[in-house]
């Protein structure tokens, strides 16, 4: 799709479009992931508070569970960072592919 009608004049636009399309799709997935995980974190936090108030768990258990939840929160944020890097990588490569396809089609054989 990206190499359709690519010319020297519109190469930059096609590169931008390819990158935007790739990043847009992935960024939406990352956003959805973060939203879903934030909801889970809120539910777990509520469970810890309510269970402690109802004496279903001891104070020490509650503290350990809160510390463990901090680890889970940090893991979610690390995963989001990693997913964002994957999205940026895909966007840059999508833009570079436009140039690669364009150059190969002009040369007449797959040089790149």
């Amino acid at each position: 799709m990206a190499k359709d009608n690519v010319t020297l004049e519109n190469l930059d636009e096609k590169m931008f479009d390819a990158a935007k399309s790739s990043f847009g799709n992935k960024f939406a997935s990352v956003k959805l992931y973060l939203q879903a995980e934030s909801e889970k974190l809120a539910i777990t936090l509520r469970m810890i508070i309510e269970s402690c108030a109802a004496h279903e768990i001891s104070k020490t258990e509650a503290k350990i569970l809160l510390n463990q939840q901090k680890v889970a929160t940090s893991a979610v944020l690390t995963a989001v960072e990693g997913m964002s890097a994957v999205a940026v990588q895909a966007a840059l490569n999508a833009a570079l592919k436009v140039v690669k396809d364009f150059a190969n089609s002009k040369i007449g054989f797959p040089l790149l």
Partner: protein
Amino acid sequence: MNRMSLSREQVLKYWVAMLCAILLAGCAEVKLSSDYDKVTDESLTTIQQKTDDFIETLMTQSTTNKAAFSKHQAFYSDIDQQLRRLEFRVNAIPKNEKTVDLVKKIRLAILGEGKCTAEGTSLRDLHCMPANKVKGPSATALAICRLNVNQTISAALSLEVAKKQSLGQSK
């Protein structure tokens, strides 16, 4: 108007020349993150299933002597071994810092540092703390612990899936 279009053309030529140079130099692909690793994916799934099954068993045994910390050493040793293997694997993969970090967090959530106090962060800390050592943690505490552990492992799995999807798209 002419100056504008000339300037745009110059910029465009500069970009094309620069990109071609980069591509010809062998940088046809930008690499910011490691590729998907099937072994990591499978190891994470195994650790998640084993831990989930263990917590489920412990919940049914809660408040009985069967849930004693001393009776479940095999599980902790097994998970420790699985995590060491996984740590070795993920450390050997270039540009894999995020996954390395996530595996460290999984260790913290399941095994922790063996503090067995309120300073602890893990399932093992919950199990080996003095009040729970003999009859295990309460079922409610275990249910919450399971949510935390699953969310931590799921973060690492989600990142691997994102890498896999990206790999599928670039082909």
